[in-house]
């Protein structure tokens, strides 16, 4: 990674739910073009972190900056309009639409039609629609489910719905994509393909921040990793560094995962 301009920085971020401190004073910086992983045991606060970055939850304290602009208090749709999109751990597809419409909706912010021009159906509107549709097909091809384009989204198997969410997040050409457990529900072959898709998108200039429990994937594609446990950051570094970190091993990886360790070390 040659250019090391930070794109997202999180400073002393904290989230308290009632009495529970879900995220506790976490800071890190993601550089442009990076693939950045957040790992940690269940309930560590990873999704909560994502929710704060994308504005779904307000933070209790701390700051989030995206390209030097402060994100706190911004609404999710505003954050999306700034160029951050995401996928969801528990899948949030628009199940009342077909697959392609799902993806076209993802392109929402790249389009200009408003209620008046739409109502009058100016020629520009039609042009824009066609263009978006073509791009949607491309996005679906990229994740490998273009043959399902005209299916209703809720009939897709679990794994394909994950891919659909990724296509939907990617179509608007965001600067930063947050993926919450993208590999969950995919087998190794499929994960492998997805990894390639991600790498390709990175080539196009997207930055990725992702949460994943599949260590093989994490170790193989991430440039940097942050580990949180119980809301607290307990480690940060390259995959190699993380694997050496005894605290991380004890809290998360388990010490007898030797075979895996050897594979990357």
């Amino acid at each position, binding site marked *: 990674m040659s250019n090391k301009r930070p794109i997202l920085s999180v400073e002393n971020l904290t989230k308290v739910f009632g009495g529970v401190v879900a995220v506790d004073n976490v800071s890190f910086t993601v550089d442009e073009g990076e693939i950045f992983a957040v790992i940690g045991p269940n309930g560590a606060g990873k999704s*909560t972190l994502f929710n704060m970055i994308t504005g779904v939850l307000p933070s209790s304290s701390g700051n989030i900056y995206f390209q030097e602009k402060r994100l706190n208090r911004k609404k999710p749709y505003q954050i999306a309009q700034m160029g951050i999109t995401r996928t969801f751990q528990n899948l949030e597809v628009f199940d009342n639409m077909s697959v392609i419409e799902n993806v076209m909706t993802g392109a929402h912010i790249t389009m200009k039609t408003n209620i008046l021009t739409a109502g009058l159906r100016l020629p520009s509107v039609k042009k824009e629609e066609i263009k978006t549709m073509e791009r949607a097909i491309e996005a679906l091809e990229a994740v490998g489910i273009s043959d399902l384009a005209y299916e209703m989204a809720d009939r897709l198997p679990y794994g394909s719905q994950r891919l659909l969410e990724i296509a939907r997040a990617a179509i608007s050409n965001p600067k930063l994509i947050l993926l919450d457990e993208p590999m969950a529900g995919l087998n190794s072959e499929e994960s492998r393909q997805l990894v390639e898709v991600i790498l390709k998108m990175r080539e196009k200039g997207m930055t990725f921040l992702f949460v994943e429990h599949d260590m093989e994937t994490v170790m193989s594609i991430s440039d940097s990793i942050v580990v949180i446990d119980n809301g607290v950051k307990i480690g940060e570094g390259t995959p190699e560094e993380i694997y050496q970190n005894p605290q991380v091993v004890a809290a998360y990886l388990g010490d007898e995962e030797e075979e895996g360790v050897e594979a990357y070390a």
Partner: protein
Amino acid sequence: MLKVNNLHTHHGYLHVLNGINFELSEGELLAIVGSNGAGKSTLLGTLAGVYRASSGSIEYKEKDITKQNVQRMVSSGIILVPERRQIFSSLSVKDNLMLGAYHRYRRDHKNVHNEYEEVLELFPRLKTMLNRPGGLLSGGEQQMLAIGRGLMANPKVLMLDEPSLGLAPLIVKDIMQILRKLCDERGATIILVEQNVKAALKVADRGCVLAHGQIVISGTSHELLNDPKVQEAYFGKVEAAKV
């Protein structure tokens, strides 16, 4: 104990299960793997009575149960831990677990409470959040809850749809051990659908690969672990991804 004969299931026009055959005896653990959309969830759903088989039969203890509805399945001890967790989001963790024992709560009051303690021992994390609405838990915590809820039913046949999904590596290992123990100590029969093929085959007695609604490879888990085709499809990840 469980016998599946030439099972076919459709979703609307779509022919999803295309003649499934297998047989399981008491205390056996079967791992099912297969790619996305192969029909794994549909198979479990059909066995649990969620989907109606369009032809073929399911026999349990020599009885034909193909047409039984879900409630009947549950009361005969056939329990499904479904895809997507399906937590009762506004009910507390405790209530969620208790409802797992719904079908035997009245008969078996005392045991239910013992079981409850046991499940909490297995998932100490849940113990700290008994009164939190289930829907507010983290993904992994919800997964634990779903598995715990399945265990609360004291299943005779337990079917788990990707139980390791969203769980941290440490926990996955624990869960596999628990499942093994359930078979060995209680004589439960388990069908495990997993994407984490290695972990699953390590504890399973037998395994099979599902593709396009058919079982294409099946054998003991040892055989499968060493099957080159399986290896290529399921364990080759690291090298390939390292670009």
